[in-house]
């Protein structure tokens, strides 16, 4: 039963993801992305990760997607232009290559014999029951023990991204130079 729900949910997630890709209208794509994020949150819920699911909804569906929509609406949206011939060709070859890639992967998955795979949900539930600690504590413990290096690195990465964005977005005068005083340069 749990597996059926799983596959239905995965199907919905993939459908939304395809919607992001194939919608010509940018706003609709963004809305589909909201759907992907929400479906992922439900996936987390099924895996008994209530906290992560909650964060997923608040941060991604709530904050980030709203920002996305803001940016899209602020930009001047025009109808997509007719693609030049070389891009259409690129589309064909890209599609063909993706198909080849897909079949390679499918072959690899097919040869790989599925055995002894337990869905994450069952493992997680057993783990949580066994340890008897709230999920948030488990999560935070993992973050400062097993995954401490990624945790630190993420914070630095975000800092870099923010500073990089600011440096790139500085304002300039007509010559493309920001006006700075001479003594600052020397």
């Amino acid at each position, binding site marked *: 039963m749990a597996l059926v729900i799983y596959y239905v949910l995965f199907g919905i997630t993939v459908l939304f993801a395809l919607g992001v890709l194939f919608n010509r209208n940018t706003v609709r794509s963004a809305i589909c992305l909201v759907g992907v994020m929400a479906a992922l949150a439900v996936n987390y819920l099924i895996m008994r990760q209530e906290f992560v699911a909650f964060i997923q909804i608040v941060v991604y569906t709530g904050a980030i997607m709203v920002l996305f929509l803001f940016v899209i609406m602020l930009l001047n949206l025009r109808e997509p232009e007719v693609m030049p011939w070389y891009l259409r060709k690129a589309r064909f070859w890209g599609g063909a290559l993706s198909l080849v890639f897909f079949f*390679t*992967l499918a*072959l*690899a*998955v097919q*040869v*790989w*014999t599925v055995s002894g795979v337990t869905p994450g949900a069952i493992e997680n539930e057993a783990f949580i029951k066994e340890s008897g600690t709230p999920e948030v504590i488990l999560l935070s413990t993992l973050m400062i*023990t*097993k*995954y*401490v*290096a*990624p945790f630190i*690195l*993420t914070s*630095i*990465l975000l800092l*870099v*991204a923010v*500073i*990089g*964005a600011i*440096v*790139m977005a*500085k304002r*300039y005068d007509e010559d*493309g*130079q*920001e006006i*700075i005083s001479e*003594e*600052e*340069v*020397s």
Partner: protein
Amino acid sequence: MANVLLILPELTIFLAAILVFKCLILGLSVLHVWRVAFAGSLLGLGACLITLGMTGEPFHPGIYRVDLFSQLMKTVIAAALVLVLVLSDSPPVMRRDAWRELPFFLLLSSAGLMMMTSATELITLYLALELSAFPVYALIVLHRDRRMGSEGATKYMLQGMVASAVTLYGMSFIFGLSGTTYLSEIAAALPELGSQPLFWVGLLLLLAGFLFKLALFPFHFWAPDTYFSSPHPVATFIATVSKVAAIAVLCRMVAVAGWNEASIDGETLRIVLIVLAVAAMTLGNLAALVQKDFKRLLGYSAIAHAGYIVVALQAFSSLGHTAIVFYTIGYLAMTWICFMVACEVGRNRDTVPVSALAGLWQRSPMLALCLLIGIFGLTGLPPTVGFIGKWFLFSAALEDGQFLLVLIAALNSAVAVYYYMRVLRVAYLLEPAKEDTGILAPSPLVVTGAMVACLVVLWMGVAPNYFWEIAAEAIVALGATY
């Protein structure tokens, strides 16, 4: 406390970056900011040397490994960072307002690269990869010619993003199969994993991000374009420092997957690597033949050199790995010399066509001599490290019985002689163009850096045993882990 000592190099570089950031906020002048960054990078190099003999794990076991291999690679990265910073003192090809940010981003990117060499956990590895890439994306945009900068950055960033997405995709396969992101646990499960094709597909996808940094064949498109359109010091950084970390990660991943007796299917990985190496060498060398821009030419030569390195990587042997580490050190010095000349000649130029080198021996005999040594090294002529390094690389493949591959590689090196010598011909035999006859006078610091780099190139070429022994010890340390 001992743990803090283990991550001293990364810590020093991070602290230097934060200090530089503070200086930026305080509005110090370009020169002061640069001095702080330079001092920080020197301290970082010192910290690397201090930790050179240490072994241990500063964080949770299995996540981050400090051993001779990682520390040697970090030392090389730190030394290269110092050399790049020497060239980054207010370069006119960058926007004036970005001069002060340049050292900050270089420091942060190097810290990411250093963490890449030590990371033994997939998520850490991925985040370090991104940390090393983000600052460089931002730096390319800061070219004084906005269109050129945007073009180069867009090309580099889009392809870099795709490559790292592919890496993440590969990691998801490996995680799905093994249920762990720790390399040690993956290595332990290898006898079982190795028989599953999906694992090898995953591993290849994972390697994509690092092959991208190395500019190997199917991921090479960015190299010539990015070298061409990024500011010269930034191009130097991409061409030297970031290659070292990519090579370190490739060595580590291959050591995990390929050295293991249990991995029978490692042969498939080897075949793929051979095909990529042949394609990269051939394409890089043939395309370089017709290049008119010096930096673009170096870009194609980098693709060819990535091929040479993979020739030794596919041997799956400690000999091959030692040859790679040895060659990496020499390659870094040679490439830096060539880019240093490009930086000096192109001080006020957005691009450095080969013709701009005309009459270099009249304009600056020192630069001309450096160019000679660097180009001889890249060509692979004795007495430089280029010759002996290639010798080691190819003999590792020969040891493995790959005669055909080595023959192709040797033929490729012969083709390469033509375009390298063309550069020297322009620099030594032609008269300088009318508009640039001025004497070029590099700053004393640049001269010192050039002397050190030339010395390394010649020293490693004449007496390789010292460096070879260190490289061999480092590889023993790497092999002992898995």
